[in-house]
Structure formats: C-alpha cells, structure tokens
C-alpha cells in the first residue's frame, strides 16, 4: 500500500530519472537503450537482442547504461527497432549480431552506426524518430507511453502522470462530473460502431441494480489489426487506470478484461500491471483512502472473432459459447450475469486518463465535428511503412497511405484500402481524399471498425478479396442465427462460383439479394456487417465481377481457375528472377531471352509475378 504522498514522491523522483526518454537535450551521463518488445519485433528476435545487449554491457562493465524493453514504436516493418536515448537515435532492422557494434561504436565511442539507420521514404537515412516522415503527421494520445516506458514497471508509468487522473477523479470529482467530462470530450467507442462513450457510461450509471461491472473488450479479432494489443503491451496501466475511473463513474466495483489468449505478451503485461496496482493499493479496498473499492480480473478469449461483439463477449466471460444475445436489452441494463455492465474497448479506455487530465475541451479540439480525438490504425498490406499509426480524426486516407505509409511499394498503383476488417468495406482511389471519421467512412460504404487499414495494390482481385472476407465470416460465424449461419455460407459459395468462372448473371443477383437482406435479419454486428465487403466491392469494382462472370476472366490472375500465368514476351528481359524463384521449376529460358511457363507444372502460386522486376508476368 502506498499513500498519496508516497506515490507523488515516486512520480517526482522517477520523472527526473526518465527525463532523457522524452527530452533529447538533457546533458545526462546515463544512456537508455530502448528495445521494442511488442509482438511484431518479438517475432523477429527482439528478446534475444535485449539479452545480448545486457550481456555485452555486463561483460564490458559499462556503467550508466540501461537496456529497457518497451512497447511498440509503431514502425513495425522496420523492426526490430532499437532507440538510444537521450540522443534519440533510431536503429532499424537490428539483429542480435548488431548489438556488439552498437555498444562498441555508439555507446562507447559515441558514433552513429550508419548502416543501421532507418531509410526514410525518399531514401535518405534518418537519425532520429521524430524526423521520420512516418511520425510527422501522427499525434499520439492513446499511444503516448508506448515505446517510451517500460510497461512492466509501474513507477515508470507513474512518472509520466500515471494514476494522476485517478487521483483527480477520486478526490476531486463526483461520478457525474466524470461522466460529464467524458461526454463533453466527444469520445466515441473505438471498437467500431462509434457509440458516444460518455452516453454509454451515463446509461450504465442510471441503470438500476446494485451490482454493476466494467468490462474491457480486448478481443481484437479483426485479422490484421493489432492496435489494442499494442496498447496493452506498451502501456497496460493506462487501460487499467481508466477501468478504475469508469468503475467509480458508474458505481461498479468489479472489472474484467477480456483478452485473446493468443496475445500472451499482452496478457502477461496486464496481469503484471494488476499485481503492481494491487500492491500500491490502486486496486482493491479503499483506493486513495476513499470508500471506493475496485478490482479487475483477466478473462481469456479462446479464438472466436464473434466474441468482439459485446454480448458474445459477455457470454464468453460467463464460460459459455460466445453466441451473441438479441438486443435490446443492452448490456448497460442487462450485461454480465444480467447485471448492468459497461463495455468499452482498449483504445477507448486508453483515451480516458488523458481526457481527465487535460480536460474535455482539449480533447474535443482535436478531430472533426462529430469525431473527436485521434484514431489508431494498424496500417498494413501493400504499403511501404507497415505499422501502428495514430492520427487526428479527419486526416485523409491519402495522408495515411502516402505521407505516413510511404505509398505503394514496387512501383505499383494504389487500388483500394480496406477499413473495418471483415465488417468494413473497400475504399477506392476516388475517395482517397476523404477525411477519415465515423460518418464519412460510413458514407462511402465502409466503416471505422477497430482500426485495421489494409492497402491493396493493383495486383489484387477485388472479387477474391470479397471472397477472403466472406470465408473469414463464414469461419467465424457463431452459427446461432439463420441468415448468418446459412446466408453467409451461400454468399461464399456464390463468390466461389464466380471466382471459378462457373457463375452466371443470376448468381450475381442472388449475391446481391443476400447481401441486402442478411444485414436486416442477422442478430449481431458480425452477421449484419458480413456482406459489407461484397457490397462495397460491388459498388466500386462491379466491372471486375462482371469480367469474372461474363468473360471468365480475372484481370489480376489471382483467381487461379481463371488465370493462366503468362510472360509478356514484349516486357521480359530474360533476367531469370522468375526462373530462380519458381518453387516447382515450371519456368524455363536462356539468360537474356524471353522465358516461358510450363502450364502443366505451374501451380499458380504467383511468386514469379511478385518477383518480376519488369512486371512482365500476368
């Protein structure tokens, strides 16, 4: 247990110590080597990098150097990332073998290791994080501490104003004032639908019932989205603190966080955070000496996309199959064990402490008229810079794809961007300048979703993409209601027919009928939005569907049944790239001469198309 004063003392002391993390002009003798320990970089051996650094530093008996594991820095495609503070040197794609060089050259000799510096979009080498174009248009609120602090150290969180918002709320605000602040800030649910957060809190507070619950939805199921996980991995306390605040606001004293078991690092860090908070008395009985009690437990999701739907999530916490309930009644009135329950997602919670500390007006000054604040996106697909980005609402898609994302690689053209995952839609070129917010995305047939943003180049077949999403939905449909269970399956079958070249125009009619009626009849958001990928691709890329049906053609060659991979003799320079990379040795040709593909051997994997430097293969 720590008293208010003790926490304040930790804050002051630690903040001073950590000044070099945020201030590059401190004349400090100390150096911090920050290594990203998020899932992305962990996949490319960042734990080994951390160990190697520590080993070398110990061996060489270097003083005043600390190796810190942090959360995600955002630029995942350049990982593993190492940043050295206070000078803020940004090293990209570091391997364990590079550690020795970094220590010897950078730490000991004070010289930059040039070849490990990150290349910016224009090809120039950039020394520090802030000068990378990737970061220039970003504004970090939810991700503020990610990549700055050690997520497993509560003192570091406290140093950067951690638990100050809780203090303010518990000692100086009434629950109504808290709710009013959130309401005024204009914060809306970041899970996808964008329901006003303050209103949700208000509804739960007003619901009758003594026992209430706060639930954090961390069941990020959108394939290709990892915003929530990164927040939990990089700054778990910010979410925990917000849950406690929410508990105070709605008069609940028990919280649950529902995290996918597939996120072991996030789970572990959050559990550590809970333990630390309990130790400090920030969770448990009489928090800050008030009569407010609150505790949080972790519940693991076990791999069902539908559990991101709030009522399915509740069923899952209760130990059942994650099958959504018919709404109304809404969770605010009948949630967990049919008690009033507030459910917000991770990113929503991550904004709360900043709003409390900086005020509603500050927050509502960011963003567009109806969508306030920032949004975190997991930018992926055919784009140069893949990673996590946080931008003010209203940033255009073009800015994200080109300025932050660095555009499309391999000299390809932008074809579409997909937001909202399997529930969202494809946004074509003509809407690149749409400012991103809840309403505008809906208007152009997509949705905000939880923040997956996948860019596609012109080698991607939109019918095939729709099929991909439908196969996902069919896989993940809980099977409870008829339209989703059977309807989406039928849609997938129709799409398969189309991509096989076996469809007739009537099949397209059927597809559209289903796409229109399933949303009206399905129980939950998953079913209701399942046809969106089809509807939006039909809206913007109808001619591709018709090509598949009428001419049995797929212009990208992605639909294998329709594709014959061919080498354009006019473009082929005989470089041999395709031949060398073909996994089944289907390509032959003399160096410098036009190559050919043996159709009987070709498995249509498309490797050759991807590697051909002259775009000669289609």
């Amino acid at each position, binding site marked *: 247990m720590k008293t208010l004063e003790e926490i304040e003392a930790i804050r002051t002391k630690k903040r001073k110590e950590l000044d070099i993390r945020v201030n590059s002009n401190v004349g400090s003798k100390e150096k911090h080597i920050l290594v990203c320990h998020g899932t992305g970089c962990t996949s490319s051996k960042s734990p080994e990098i951390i160990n190697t650094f520590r080993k070398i530093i110990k061996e060489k008996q270097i003083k005043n150097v600390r190796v810190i594991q942090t959360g995600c820095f955002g630029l995942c495609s350049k990982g593993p990332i190492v940043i050295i503070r206070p000078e803020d040197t940004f090293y990209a794609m570091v391997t364990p073998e590079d550690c020795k060089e970094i220590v010897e050259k950078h730490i000991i000799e004070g010289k930059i290791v040039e070849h490990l510096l990150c290349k910016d979009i224009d090809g120039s080498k950039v020394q520090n994080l802030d000068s990378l174009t990737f970061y220039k248009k970003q504004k970090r609120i939810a991700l503020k501490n990610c990549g700055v602090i050690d997520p497993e150290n509560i003192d570091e969180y406290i140093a950067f104003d951690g638990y100050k918002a809780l203090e303010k709320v518990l000692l100086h605000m009434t629950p109504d004032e808290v709710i009013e602040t959130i309401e005024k800030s204009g914060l809306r649910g970041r899970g996808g639908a964008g329901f006003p957060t303050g209103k949700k809190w208000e509804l739960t507070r007003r619901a009758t019932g003594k026992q209430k619950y706060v639930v954090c939805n961390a069941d990020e199921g959108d394939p290709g989205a990892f915003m929530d996980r990164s927040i939990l991995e990089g700054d778990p306390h910010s979410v925990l603190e917000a849950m406690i605040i929410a508990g105070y606001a709605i008069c609940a004293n028990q919280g649950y966080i529902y995290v996918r078991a597939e996120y072991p690092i996030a789970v572990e860090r959050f559990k550590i955070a809970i333990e630390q908070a309990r130790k400090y008395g920030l969770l448990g009985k009489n928090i800050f000496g008030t009569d407010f009690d609150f505790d949080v437990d972790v519940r693991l999701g076990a791999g069902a996309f539908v559990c991101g739907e709030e009522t399915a999530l509740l069923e899952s916490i209760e130990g059942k199959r994650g099958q959504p309930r018919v709404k109304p009644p809404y969770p605010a009135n009948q949630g967990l064990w049919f008690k009033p329950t507030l459910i917000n997602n991770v990113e929503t919670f991550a904004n709360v402490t900043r709003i409390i500390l900086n005020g509603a007006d500050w927050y509502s000054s960011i963003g567009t008229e109806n969508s306030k604040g920032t949004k975190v996106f997991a930018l992926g697909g055919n784009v140069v810079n893949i990673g996590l980005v946080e931008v003010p609402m209203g940033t255009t898609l073009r800015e994200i794809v080109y300025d932050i994302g660095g555009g499309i690689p391999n000299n390809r053209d932008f074809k579409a961007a997909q937001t909202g995952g399997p529930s969202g839609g494809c946004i074509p070129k003509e809407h690149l300048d749409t400012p991103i917010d809840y309403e505008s995305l809906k208007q152009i047939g997509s949705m905000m979703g939880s923040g997956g943003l996948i860019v596609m180049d012109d080698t991607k077949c939109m019918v095939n993409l729709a099929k991909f999403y439908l196969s996902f939905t069919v896989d993940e449909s809980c099977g409870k209601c*008829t339209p989703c269970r059977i309807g989406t399956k039928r849609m997938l079958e129709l799409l398969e027919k189309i991509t096989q070249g076996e469809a007739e125009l009537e099949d397209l009619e059927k597809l559209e009928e289903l796409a229109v009626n399933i949303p009206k009849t399905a129980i939950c958001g998953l079913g209701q939005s399942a046809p969106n990928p089809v509807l939006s691709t039909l809206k913007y890329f109808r001619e591709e569907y018709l090509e598949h049906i009428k001419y049995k053609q797929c212009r990208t060659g992605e639909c294998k049944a329709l594709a014959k991979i061919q080498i354009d003799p006019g473009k082929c320079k005989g470089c041999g790239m395709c031949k060398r990379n073909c996994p089944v040795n289907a390509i032959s040709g003399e160096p410098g001469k036009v190559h050919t593909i043996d159709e009987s051997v070709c498995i249509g994997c498309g490797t050759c198309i991807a590697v051909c430097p002259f775009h000669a293969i289609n």
Partner: protein
Amino acid sequence: MAELPMIHLTIDNKKVEVPKGTTILQAARKVNIDIPTLCYLKEINAIGDCRMCITEVEGRKGFATSCIQQVEEDMVVHTHSPAVIEARKMILDLILSNHHRDCLTCEKNGNCELQALAVKFNVQGVRYEGTKNEHKVDDKSPAIVRDFNKCILCRRCVSACKKVQKIGAIDAVNRGFASCVSTVGDNSLNDVNCTFCGQCIQACPTGALHEKDSTEIVWENLRDPETFVVVQTAPAVRVALGEEFGMPIGTNVAGKMVTALKRLGFDKVFDTNTGADFTIMEEATEFVKRFKENDNLPMMTSCCPAWVKYIEMNYPEYLPHLSSCKSPHEMFGAVLKTYYATKQKINPEKIFVVSVMPCIAKKFERQREEMKDNGVYDVDAVITTRELARMIKQANIEFVELEDEGFDNPMGEATGAGAIFGVTGGVMEAALRTASELITKKPLEKINFEEVRGQKGIKRATIKIGEKEVKIVVASGLGNAEKIMEEIKKGKADYQFVEIMACPGGCIMGGGEPIKSSKIRETIDVAKKRSEAMYTIDEKSKVRLSHKNPVLQKIYKEYLGEPGGKLAHELLHTHYQKREKYSF
C-alpha cells in the same frame, strides 16, 4: 403480487392492451394476429435464432425480434409489411437450402412446423441452393433416433434437455455453418447421460428427433398365427390418442382405442390401469412397512423409467430409497406371462406383450435385464401413442367413426386410482388412498387429495393419515427432481414419500404423446386438458381404490399371495444399478 401496469400499442392497425413484460409475439397472438416462429417454444425457448418472427416497429432501425422484444407504450408494429415478408422468405429459403426435404418419407410429414411454413409461404423451389451438412443418423439407442439432417438448429431440444430437464445430454456444438446439436464427442445418445425422457422429441419442430420405431415388430407378431399377441394401454394414451385423428385435446377415446386395437388383430386388449393397481398394492404396502420401520425414507416412486435412469446416473447413493416396485406395465407383463398364461394354458414364450405408452423411456426400460422373469421379458414391445396412431392409420381404420368397446376381461378391469397414474401427483394420490386405508384400517372419508393435483412443478404437502402425518412431495420434470434431490441431499427436507415423473406435467405430457406445435402450446394448456380428462375417468369409476379392485383381489388370492409376499416380490419387484453417465 402487484398488478403489472398495462402497455398500449398498435399491431397491424389493431389497438392492443397487454401487461408490461409481454412480448410482441404474445401480444399479437392475444389478438389473433399470428407471427410465424420456428425456434420459439413457450416457456422453454425464446432466443431469437431462427429470425422468422421478425417484425417492423415504426421508428426503429432494423427488425424487432418479436419473441424477445417486449412491448413498449405507443409502439406501432407491422407484422407482415412487404420488407418483413421478403426477409422471412429469404430466411425460410435458407433453412430449406440446408434441409433434407424428404418430406414424403419423413415421420413428421403433416405435423412439421417447417413444412407448414413452406406451405404458408407458397415455397415453389429453393433459390439459394448450396452444400448441405451431412450427419450420420444415430439409431443406436433403444428409444430415440436422431437424424440431424433434418435439424434446423432452433435449439428447442437443447433447452428442453438442458434448461427444463437439467440433463444437457445434447447441446450446440461446432461453429458457423458446421454448427449442429450433438452429444459430447458426437457419441450416440445411448452412451451419454440421456434419460430417454423424450422431451426433446416433443420440442422438435421437424423430424430431426423421433422415437425408435417398434411398429414393424408388432406387425410381424400380429401376422404370426402362432403368437398370442396381447396389448395393454397406459392411462395417458386414451386421453391423447384422439388428437392424432383431429379430435379435441383432452378427449377420452378409450372405447374407440380398444375397438381399433381389436381391429388391428390383437388377441387380447388389456388395460395398464390394472397394472397400476398392482403397483399401488405393492407400493403402498411397501410404503406402509417402510414408514412404520423408518426404513430408507423418503421412499421414492419408481414407475417412471426416465427418473429411474436419472437417479441411477446422478444419485446412485439414493437407490435404496427407490420403491422396489416395477412400473405398472412391467408388473402387468409379468402377471400376464405367469398367472394369465397358466390360466389360459398358453406357453409364456408364445405370448407377445405390447405396451402402448405415452413414453419414450419405456422402450429402454423394457429391455433392461432386470425386466426378465424366467428368462423372458415381461414386455416384448413398447409403442408410443403416436406409433399406435400410425398403425391405426396404416390399417385404414376410420378412428373417429369407431364404436366404443370395452377392455378384455379378466384383466381389463381397473380402478380410478389406476387411471390417474398418468398425471403428476396421480401415483401419489393413488398410493395415499390405499396407504391410508391400510394404516387406519378405516374407509377414506375423502378420496380426492387436492394437495397433489395441478400442474405445478413441485407440490409439497403434509398429509394426515389417522394420527400420523406424512410429509410428501410431488415433482414433475427432471429439473424439479434435481431440486428435490438436492434438498434431500443437503438435509434441508424430511420428506417421507416422494413422487417423481420425468416429464413436466406427468405422462400425459410424455415424450411419446402426440406432438403439439409451438403455436398450440402457446395458446392451449394441453396438460390441463389432458389431465382433466384423466380425473374425469377417475370420478366416473365404480371403484376408486386400487386394493378394492376385484380382479386384483382374485389374483392375489389365487396366485400371488400377500402383497409384498415372496412371489409378488419375485414377479413384481426389481432392483437398480448405479450407472455411468458417460459410457465411452
């Protein structure tokens, strides 16, 4: 109870006033506006899965699920707007696209809720054809056949099994299109914790669940001139059989039933009610003895085979509390193959006893090893009320037009006490009538025991017999049985006599009785009607106490000796065994 405030709304331009908490569906049906349903089943299942009951509510985005959505003040509902109809058509089409559609050869042909909707919506073809789920038919058990190729995943059976009966032998498994209702590990029902109560069959709107057919073997034996085929009919059959021929629910068709059975070619038509009288003789005697000696109290009835299997699986430590009496039809079978056979000079092995039962579990009970005497089964075949109706239809008998005939003598005479065996509380009442007279040795002043009547799931009472008080409890539905067993187990109750029937309402609502559609179950109290018919039979009976049955008195005197005596024990009593819930 405070009265609920009334809510006013408009459904299809009709003003409706209903109490708060009513659903749109209930409100609509109240004013004779029908909304199609599939997954909804009154008091059992309201989960909004099938989506057939969607309606339009003015000012609301999306459709409302009328089986769940409660009415609100000034709500304006449209139950069949063009948009609703279009959506329902799609839903129905999708369900049919994943259905076997072999209606002509389906056992539910003519009584299928899906088929009825297809007719209603004038389905001429299936637009969204596609792959179908293929399931192996499970016919391993002696009682229930599961053909999940006909399942529409309404989950009414799951709720009946899990929520009402608290068994959970079946549940939804897998996910998405592969979802189905199944057992653990997709094992046969035979090898899991199923009690064969058959409530799942009663709940099923299609032909996915039905009883294991025994009519073929009955026909076979009827055709064999060497075999003496005897049939006995349970008390609950006569008050429901008529429904299968379009007669009103709760019509007593005993006379027509006997005529039909004779026409079918049975050599003798007897009444299981007489068997019930035997049971009471034995059970009341057993109770009086155990009550006096305070031996293994509470004593629990044992005439319900699903309950017996349930306690064998779930509370084996209480098996000594079960009455050792066989169930009425088994007792009757035993008497037929011994006393009657000797009297009529028929080789017992040439007698084929058929029991017509309202019950599915009797099919399981019949083949238990304990139900053999001198190496032959007491009963050779069990058919349900529905199977009997099918046989009558096959024989082209115009059931409704039949004259009444009486049961064959000497075994056809039964008392009113035997008649009420088919309703919850009936066994208790019959036993109390006899036990009272056995204890007090005085004639009963009041024959009716109103305390144990009615459709309540649990009925507790303290009955005064002479100077003594007997604490009793009557429960129907295995969910209620569980409650009672837990009370007893935790020492929270000191009952002396417990009656359990596995089916909610008793045998008149048994798994083998005519199946009523969701809509009928919503609007008519089927259990009440059938049970009223039973009590009427009792009221009109000349003899209303089992031990006063002259047939019984004669047989005990001539053959069995004393009730509870040695021979009676050999023939009319049995024993039980602990059973594993899961045997794989």
